[in-house]
């Protein structure tokens, strides 16, 4: 059966080139970069090179890059460590649409006695910098706003928000896990103090991430250890994964212009869905939006059953419905845009990548409408609508 992977916001395939770059670091150059001997020195050389590559991709210095175990660790380190490093300041500003890794790190700070302001978004899923400015206080330690949203793909005005944070003497952190590799990410241009990224969203493996910390910005250490990462993050470096992350970042940067093609397919998908399926609505504004993100709410149906039927046709997607997760609430992101709970249950996210073809998009546009219709015919909520339109 044909299989179309349209869940790249959840994770991506490791690319062949990335895997090839990694392979020597398992059985041949397997050294510990901290070891003094030849095998260790070889590893150290690869580590340094990888750090330089990631730094180049973000336009910073190599010694501003710290490797971590994942995006979640980077988020936790930046938010908790960043807040703790601002002694005496007890206020955090973030948004209602952050990834749980960032959101729950803020919740953890609340338990320690920090006050957190959760700035809302407009109906299109954008943060208004004026709201951040209005929330600033004397004791604001940190402003944490994600660069691009994983569910609805909206891209936030990070540069403006960073200026506001700095004018108020706060640190600025952005979770750029979904942005890196998809849109230009230049830490100098953005003016942020810290920025998180993750390997598995850019065709590198799962379980590797990085945190950019601007020179002089020193979030309190989260993982104590044997002095790795210049004493800032313990743990023997996951060299193969680090090399993979660097390769992926390098490729993504070199091929950033490819993303225009992805964006064109995204638009075809959005327009095609909205044209073919009545009672549907795009979640998240059209622009600026991640090139691969499509998120649509279909009235009268529930997302999990939609996913199951799409899966039967070989289409892998995701939903913001509560029923597909272990929680009882539908997506906090969709609710933050003002989407009513019942409509949030009927949301579908398709996240495409540069591996997605026009034929894939056509296939989705062919399969999706009858599936939505089939579920609507089964839905008691659709009865009235169907009767009125007869």
């Amino acid at each position, binding site marked *: 059966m044909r299989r179309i992977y349209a869940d790249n916001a959840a994770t991506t395939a490791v690319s062949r080139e990335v895997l090839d770059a990694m392979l020597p670091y398992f059985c041949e150059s397997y050294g510990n970069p901290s070891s003094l001997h030849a095998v260790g020195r070889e590893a150290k050389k690869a580590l340094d090179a990888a750090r330089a590559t990631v730094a180049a991709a973000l336009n910073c210095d190599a010694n501003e890059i710290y490797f971590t175990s994942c995006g979640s660790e980077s988020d936790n380190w930046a938010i908790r460590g960043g807040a703790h490093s601002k002694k005496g300041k007890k206020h955090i500003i973030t948004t209602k649409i952050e990834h749980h890794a960032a959101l729950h790190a803020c919740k953890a700070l609340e338990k320690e006695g920090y006050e957190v302001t959760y700035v809302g978004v407009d109906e299109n899923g954008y943060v208004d910098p004026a709201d951040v400015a209005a929330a600033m206080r004397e004791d604001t330690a940190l402003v944490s706003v994600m660069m691009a949203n994983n569910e609805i793909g909206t891209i936030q005005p990070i540069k403006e928000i960073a200026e506001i944070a700095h004018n108020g003497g706060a640190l600025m952190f952005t979770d750029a896990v979904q942005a890196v590799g998809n849109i230009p990410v230049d830490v100098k241009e953005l003016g942020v103090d810290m920025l998180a990224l993750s390997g598995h969203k850019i065709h590198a493996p799962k379980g590797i991430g990085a945190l950019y910390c601007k020179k002089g910005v020193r979030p309190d250490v989260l993982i104590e250890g044997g002095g790795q990462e210049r004493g800032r993050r313990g743990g023997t470096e996951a060299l193969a994964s680090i090399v993979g992350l660097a390769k992926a970042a390098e490729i993504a940067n070199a091929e950033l212009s490819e993303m225009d093609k992805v964006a064109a397919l995204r638009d075809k998908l959005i327009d095609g869905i909205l044209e073919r399926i009545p009672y549907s609505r795009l979640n998240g504004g059209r622009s600026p939006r991640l090139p691969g993100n499509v998120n649509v709410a279909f009235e009268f149906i529930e997302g999990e059953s939609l996913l199951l039927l799409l899966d039967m046709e070989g289409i892998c997607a995701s939903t913001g419905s509560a*029923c597909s997760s272990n929680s009882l609430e539908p997506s906090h992101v969709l609710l933050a845009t003002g989407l009513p709970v019942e409509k949030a249950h009927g949301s579908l996210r398709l996240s495409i990548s540069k591996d997605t073809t026009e034929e894939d998009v056509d296939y989705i546009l062919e399969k999706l409408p009858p599936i939505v219709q089939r579920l609507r015919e089964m839905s008691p909520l659709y009865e009235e609508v169907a009767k009125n339109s007869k």
Partner: protein
Amino acid sequence: MDYSEKVMDHFAHPRNVGEIEDANGVGTVGNAKCGDIMKMYLKVDDSEIITDVKFKTFGCGAAIATSSMATEMIKGKSINDALGLTNKAVIEALGGLPAVKIHCSVLAEEAVKSAIADYYKRKGIENDLTREMDCNGCCGCEHDHHHHDTEEE
């Protein structure tokens, strides 16, 4: 999420989907906010046998599968037998449900009871089934659910 083969079968090929024009018992349970609504239509004959049953469901795979299974289990049965249908029996018939989906089976049981309650009401027969059944507890609200078996199979 791991659904049993039976669940997937009933989800992909639901039995008894639709409406009954001249139903004499109709019940709706659940709410859109929780993410599942089941509507059940019954046609009950003079000797209190359920000669036909249909359903419509807004909800997840398990909600559709439990509705489908419940309709199969009560079709051709007496009202009394149908009242004896438990969520546990529905779970068993489906070869188990993931823990987070147990509430769907509760909803299916309640949909049957709600439709029967409506049948009684239309006939003017007193019954104790008319208690509020518009929430199955999935939204975290505090209702009395302990009479149901909520163990994972």
